[in-house]
């Protein structure tokens, strides 16, 4: 095994910590630095205990460590606003940013669908869309790879406990961003996204429904095969990604019912929506790392 690519994680909250747990298992990525803004943060303490260097003065205060440690990839799990500043500081140092915020400075990336097409060797910033996007766009793409999809709609249902204040304050950003990526990455002519937050206890596991309207009569066999092949690709990095029902064919409509159970690394199992984001971000970074190693 060639040398691992060194990575920093910005944002030692739930997402950043779950990502750290996953990255510690990676064959390609070595997490070396956790960057936060609060010296008393539990997440920073946890990262230090796991052997990472830490910095509590934001990215500005961490630049010397980034250089000294040879960090080549940075995961940003802060906010869209903070990401802009982080990006301005790190991109000139040649660090590739994997952006889990809604900032979308870089192109949308749903790894099994479009990462290879994004030219990973040259990328300096990729955006991970939204949790709902990561869960559903592979299936929209699975259908649109077979035949023209004139309209695709996704419904993401997530447990109340797994939705943080940032998403709540700007829930329109979720619907807009996801709908836009259903079109640009999923390959549908028109996209729509709906998010439902459910407070049931015990919390429900993330579930997603994908409806596609094909321009012509759906080729049932080809679409079913394509959906099952895509399922395997996503399961390679999200083991709890499951096809519950479908594809169901009704006229030109194709419906796919999914469930996403998290691995429970740091976040609870029901929070498949958060798990699929951290898993997709790490998977993206691992593919980028292969180009950096080469």
């Amino acid at each position: 095994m060639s040398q691992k690519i060194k990575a920093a994680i910005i944002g030692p909250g739930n997402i950043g910590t779950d990502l750290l747990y996953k990255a510690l298992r990676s064959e390609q990525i070595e997490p070396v630095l956790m960057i936060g803004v609060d010296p008393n943060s539990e997440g920073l303490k946890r990262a230090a205990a796991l052997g990472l260097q830490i910095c509590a003065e934001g990215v500005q205060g961490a630049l010397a460590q980034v250089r000294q440690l040879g960090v080549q990839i940075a995961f940003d799990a802060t906010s869209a606003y903070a990401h802009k500043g982080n990006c301005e500081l790190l991109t000139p140092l040649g660090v590739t940013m994997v952006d889990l915020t809604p900032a979308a400075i870089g192109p949308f990336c749903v790894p099994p669908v479009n990462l290879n097409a994004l030219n990973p060797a040259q990328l300096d910033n990729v955006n991970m869309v939204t949790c709902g996007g990561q869960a559903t766009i592979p299936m929209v793409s699975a259908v649109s790879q077979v035949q023209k999809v004139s309209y695709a709609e996704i419904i993401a249902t997530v447990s109340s406990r797994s939705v943080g204040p940032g998403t709540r304050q700007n829930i329109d950003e979720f619907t807009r961003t996801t709908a836009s990526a259903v079109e640009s990455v999923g390959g549908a002519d028109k996209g729509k996204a709906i998010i439902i937050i459910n407070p049931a206890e015990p919390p429900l596991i993330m579930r997603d429904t994908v409806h596609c309207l094909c321009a012509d009569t759906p080729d049932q066999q080809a679409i079913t095969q394509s959906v099952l092949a895509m399922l395997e690709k996503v399961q390679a990095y999200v083991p709890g990604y499951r096809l519950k029902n479908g594809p169901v064919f009704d006229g030109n409509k194709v419906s796919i019912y999914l469930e996403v159970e998290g691995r429970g690394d740091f976040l609870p199992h029901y929070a498949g929506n958060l798990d699929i984001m951290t898993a997709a971000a790490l998977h993206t970074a691992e593919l980028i790392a292969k180009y950096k190693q080469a």
Partner: protein
Amino acid sequence: MNLKDKSVILHDMSLRDGMHAKRHQISLEQMVNIATGLDAAGMPLIEVTHGDGLGGASLNYGFPAHSDEEYLSAVIPKMQQAKVSALLLPGIGTVDHLRMAKDLGVSSIRVATHCTEADVSEQHIGLSAKLGLDTVGFLMMAHMVSAEKLLEQAKLMEAYGANCIYCTDSAGYMLPDEVSQKIGLLRAELGSHIEIGFHGHHNLAMGVANSLAAIEAGAKRIDGSVAGLGAGAGNTPLEVLVAVLERMGATHGIDLYKIMDVAEDLVVPMMDQPIRVDRDALTLGYAGVYSSFLLFAKRAEARHGVSARDILVELGKRGTVGGQEDMIEDLALDMASQRKLS
């Protein structure tokens, strides 16, 4: 119960909640005729949109016969005195829809969330208030939480800028005592400038009784629907409520005979099915399930041979909330395959 001289603002739902019962297929002509009839009867507020609110047009909830823009543009210019409201569910509709509705002349925006998730409404309530619209926070499925929890969520909406807060019995599950308790606490604890509203469904035939309890406990705005046209067993039938309020000496501003005629001559003839407490609608009220699931469960029964009542009971057990219509088909498929196995 003494409601003498209590002043009530009635709000008609037939052209929004009624869209559920019509699979969102009300024609522009029907919309305009009913709205005009209600306007002439003195109805102060009329809601017009897709059943699931602005932006509800979808495969999940059903594509409507016309867009929200078309319905609002057709109805609003015809109104003499009635104001038109639009519903918006964050997660389905966005602030772009809200701006569109305002530009078309909507006077009142009702931002609806599940009763524990009020904090997703901050941007929509904030913008609506900033635009100078009558801004309502609409807490759905209110039977699922205590009065104290409902108040906590109502206070969030008040802080975002709402001038009216609704206790919404989306499942038609509540009984009058619960309505009294919830409305009473909201009235006692929210600012005196905040109006309190109640939205009922008739699944346990409690629409009128619950509305009276709400008024007695301090609600100023009451939702209902002419001829009851709405999801489940419908909303509180407004012509009935008006007759009752009339007898009790409450002030409502509606011409009873005119609204009776709108119900009988315009709304009943266009119903696809009688709006009544059939066994499935009754199950909604009994099991505490979102009323617009009714027709979806009936369709799943027809397609997969699984009882709609069994589907609805199971949805209730799982704590399903408004908007989860996609769960019905998924669950029916599971139930059908389990039956094959056994």
